[in-house]
């Protein structure tokens, strides 16, 4: 067999490995979701759950637990995990740095400030979510303006530093609101929100977020080949025919939209957008076309597992941010210990 034919076979195998991994992950996700629907303080059997879903059992507690509480919550965990991991994969690729998370341009800090302001003003839940969404977008827009105003130097570095500055300012404002907040009523709510939680999430909360996430994902999927090329760096991408500046702006816009809309629903959940894209890259390689779906599926599965733990390991809800950090931080350290090769 000549070299060309061997390369052809190897390349095909590579592509199939990506598709196979995605299929395998999707299957595991479906099984995991079914399991998560049954697990909880009010355990449900598979038969019982099926009779509720098919409409045969329309009265009683099982229906309330399954349809009003668990189904929205499972759906929310899948959405939030997929969105954060997908956004993380985008940010890591375009910033050419595997240590980047979706928070790098201040979206979480901005969303945090917006939502905390909503809680501080005792606004209804929908308004708090809207403020969180607007805060996230506002922070990144501010970063963009600052970076555009600074003409000199490395554009990426300026962008990242502006993100650090805006994030710090938003964090300071959030802290001020915490000091001023009512310590018995508002402060626990603020603290819980800043650590992230899906407790009490309703179908109505997901209705605005899900379409925005979907709308943000579409351009990313369509542009996946070019986003891959952008990871070579601006200069090479431009020499290969990619309008690097415009493409980066598009990716940042989409990834920010995705992140802000789920942070508005779930609060600030750290580590998912940083760690999950790493694992996805280990499974399917760095090609963005395979990385994006793999990261989204893995993120959804990870969040499903973490949220199921959060509502079952103790009588009180455990904030998601605590669990993702407990799992994510040691894993990250392990990645660092394995060295640069592990990022591949």
């Amino acid at each position, binding site marked *: 067999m000549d*070299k060309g034919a*061997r390369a052809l076979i190897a390349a095909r195998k590579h592509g199939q490995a990506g598709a196979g991994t995605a299929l395998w992950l999707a299957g595991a996700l479906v099984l995991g979701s079914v399991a998560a629907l049954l697990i909880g303080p009010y355990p449900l059997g598979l038969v019982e759950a099926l009779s509720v879903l098919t409409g045969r059992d329309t009265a009683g507690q099982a229906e309330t637990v399954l349809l009003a509480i668990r189904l929205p919550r499972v759906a929310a965990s899948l959405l939030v995990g997929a969105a954060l991991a997908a956004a993380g994969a985008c940010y890591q690729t375009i910033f050419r740095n595997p240590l980047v998370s979706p928070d790098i341009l201040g979206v979480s800090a901005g969303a945090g400030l917006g939502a905390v302001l909503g809680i501080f003003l005792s606004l209804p839940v929908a308004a708090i979510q809207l403020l969180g969404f607007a805060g996230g977008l506002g922070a990144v827009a501010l970063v963009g303006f600052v970076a555009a105003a600074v003409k000199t130097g490395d554009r990426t570095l300026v962008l990242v530093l502006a993100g650090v500055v805006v994030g710090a300012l938003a964090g300071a404002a959030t802290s001020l609101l915490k000091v001023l907040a009512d310590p018995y009523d508002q402060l626990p709510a603020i603290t819980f929100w800043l650590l992230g939680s899906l407790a009490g999430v309703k179908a109505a909360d997901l209705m605005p977020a899900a379409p925005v996430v979907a709308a943000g994902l579409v351009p990313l999927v369509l542009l996946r080949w*070019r986003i891959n090329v952008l990871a070579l760096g601006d200069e090479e991408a*431009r*020499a290969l*025919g990619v309008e690097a500046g415009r493409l980066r702006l598009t990716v940042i816009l989409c990834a920010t939209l995705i992140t802000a809309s789920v942070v508005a629903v779930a609060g600030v959940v750290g580590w998912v957008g940083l760690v999950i894209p790493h694992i996805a*890259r280990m499974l399917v390689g760095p090609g963005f076309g395979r990385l994006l779906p793999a990261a989204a599926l893995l993120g959804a599965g990870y969040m499903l597992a973490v949220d199921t733990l959060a509502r079952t390991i103790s009588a009180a809800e455990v904030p998601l941010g605590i669990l993702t950090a407990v799992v994510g931080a040691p894993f990250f350290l392990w990645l660092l210990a394995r060295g640069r090769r592990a*990022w591949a």
Partner: protein
Amino acid sequence: MTVETRDLAIGYPGREVGSGITLAAGPGAVLFLLGPNGSGKTTLFRTQLGLIPARGGQVLLEGRPLDRLSRAEVAQRVAYVPQAHAPPFAWSAFEVVLMGRTARLGLFSQPGEADREAARAALERLRIGDLAEADYTRLSGGQRQLVLVARALAQETPALIMDEPTASLDFGNQALVLREIAGLAADGLTVILSTHDPDHAFAVGTDVALLHEGRVKATGPPAAALTEEALSAVYGVDVRVERLADGRTVCVPSLSRQGESQRTDPASDRS
């Protein structure tokens, strides 16, 4: 395709690197750029590709001003081989070569079987087909350079700009790449490249431009432009140009020091 610069001034905001650069390379030409480190070769290439704006003058691709062309239009005309570098993610060498096809794809398209075929052919042409599935980040500097040359070939442009494509190659691969360059020019392509080895220009160059401190000191066919006097003046060492019995020309630098006044070696200023 003719790549032309007219009275080009190159550099960065607040820092001019060179000026008055007028060069042209047409189909079949192999234009070698020679000059000491820091003489502005890479800056000139980046300007010719529109990666940085010209500070003055014009770059013309087939008579059309560069700044009127979109990035994709430029990439369909000129391929660039940058100096080898380490990217942050471990694509396979095949994927890196496949990226050369980007300018031929629609905004939302993925590379198809024809693109894969072109990428494989480019790898085979440089005899690195067996590296196709290797992690690009694990390759040696020379192997990476060959992959980048393959990527430029996969781009299938009428012109190529190569920044020291032989710099980290072993003796055999240098000859391989030079032979490929001569072959591409024979097929009617325009090749502009830089090198630190004047012998390469003598071997396959149709034209040379000797760059010194951002200005063209000499230009023309290698035998006319690369004289012992010109090379000695630009590089600051005595250079002998010898013709071998088989008609080839080689350059040999003298290892004894030239007059100190002519030599501007920044390394010797450090203590």
